[in-house]
């Protein structure tokens, strides 16, 4: 596309689409380029599990260190305490800031810390959110953090709110969904964008459903297809193919 054609667009289109109401915990961030990023915020349960994994990793590390350093007497005890300090305070900070926002536990659970605007988390926010654990832990077992997490729209604990960070799910790389080939067929009437999206989504997901369920879903669209049962499913596949531009 030549650049002038780009400039000839009346205005960037992304902001012009009708806002789709989302029932998920997505946080929508508008980038300076005017495109909305969708950040899937993580709730307290996977985060608690990640914390437990980290706790086990840290405990194991300290146990191993304790055995080795125990042989060194006073010097070993001193080093053990220094290591304890580092594992307690520096472990999450260093991992989050230097390892793509993930501690080993977060990596295991597919979580990541990002800045509030979706950019990678920097050193200072990583320091803030982890120092604030001291408050989130109050009065026991991260109760304050859990409460803040449940009250916040994006599941942020107090430390996240002060540091302006967010814990998101790392979406697994999707396998390209295959739309079954079918004779392309134009929908009998013009469809809204979300209706088109629903048709294409049906085409991509239906092959993983049982035939009975496919027919049941297709029956909902009887006003559009005019038939029900297997023929209705085939027509929907055809329309999905047509919408994708395969003719």
């Amino acid at each position, binding site marked *: 596309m030549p650049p002038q054609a780009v400039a000839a667009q009346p205005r960037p289109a992304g902001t012009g689409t009708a806002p789709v109401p989302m029932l998920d915990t997505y946080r929508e961030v508008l980038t300076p380029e005017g495109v909305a990023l969708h950040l899937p915020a993580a709730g307290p349960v996977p985060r608690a599990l990640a914390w437990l994994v980290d706790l086990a990793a840290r405990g194991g590390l300290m146990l191993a260190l304790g055995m080795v350093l125990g042989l060194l007497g006073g010097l070993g*005890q001193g080093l053990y305490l220094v290591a304890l300090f580092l594992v307690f305070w520096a472990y999450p900070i260093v991992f989050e800031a230097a390892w793509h926002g993930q501690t080993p536990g977060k990596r295991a659970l597919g979580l990541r810390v990002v800045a509030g605007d979706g950019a990678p988390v920097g050193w200072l926010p990583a320091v803030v959110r982890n120092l604030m654990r001291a408050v989130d832990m109050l009065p026991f077992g991260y109760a304050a953090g859990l409460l803040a997490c449940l009250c916040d729209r994006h599941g942020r604990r107090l430390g996240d709110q002060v540091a302006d960070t967010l814990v998101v799910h790392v979406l697994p790389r999707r396998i390209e969904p295959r739309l079954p080939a079918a004779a392309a067929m134009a929908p009998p009437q013009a469809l809204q964008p979300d209706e088109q999206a629903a048709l294409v989504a049906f085409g991509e997901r239906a092959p993983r459903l049982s035939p009975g369920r496919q027919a049941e879903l297709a029956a909902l669209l009887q006003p559009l297809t005019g038939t029900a049962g297997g023929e209705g499913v085939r027509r929907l596949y055809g329309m999905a193919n047509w919408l994708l531009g395969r003719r």
Partner: protein
Amino acid sequence: MRQEQFVERHKVEWDAFERWLHARGENPRAARRGAAPVGLDDGEVPARYRRLCQQLALARRRGYSAPLLERLQALIQRGHAVLYRAPAPRWHRAVEFLVAGFPQLVRSQAGCMWASLLLFAVPLVGLFVLLQFKPELVHQLLDPRQIAQAEAMFDPADPRQALGRDSGSDWQMFGHYVMNNISIGLRTFAGGLLAGVGTILVLVANGLNIGAVAGHLQAIGHGEPFWRFVAGHAPLELTAIVIAGGAGLRLGLDLVAPGRRRRRDALVHAGRIGARLCLGVAAMLLLAAFVEAFWSSTQSLPAWLKYTVSAALWLLVLGWLWRGGHGRAAAEDGDAS
């Protein structure tokens, strides 16, 4: 334009961008070093990225299918993460921060620092003076075991006590001081999030505790070994606690009275300041732990030498906080330091 034509037209561009992200985007250090070319010039990437954004917007407008939108969205998300990431930390920045940026930052929060100093020093000095006149009051403040422990530790009649240690236990105490003192410093800051109450409690409690121990030891005549012990690390440790307290008060103040900003923005701002102060405080307390473990505990050195070194350290610390980075343009919320 139908979706498949659109994909066909731009696919090459997207693939090139993806290859670049894969080769150069993952590691800022490698990117800075300048690795082998990957078919897309680095200088061209921002423009490519903006084109991609435009294409995504167009695709959304035209209602293309979800997988295509998701692919573009994922590409943009990764591009966004690369273009807007914080710069990699550099060592000379860290040194610069400790020498100049930190004292500047402390001075810029002078009000909170003075308040923190008052909250810490008034209970300390007040209690110390009080105990000289009413020494029996100490039993209201410390439990008998603590008193006995402190008395034994600084008993001038028993020179083999904790002050003269072998090097093994020096290391052990070093570890103990690192774990204990730095944790206290960091918690003093974090407590500010409880509307400042946590910080105030920690400051006053520490002031009372130190004042009680010092006052009691002075009153019963164990003062000399005590002062000799604490003189070395006091300049670093006490100022560090006061600074951590100041950072906590700043946080609490911004929570209670955010001024003309949103409360959330004010908190984020105070958090950034506090984090940088905490980095400096941690460095100070690390040094203090070193002094406390390996210098304060040495028995053999004469008292005058210890007091001279202490005075020199006080001058150094206060001079550093007072003049450090003076005249240098204030670093505006630098993220990398």
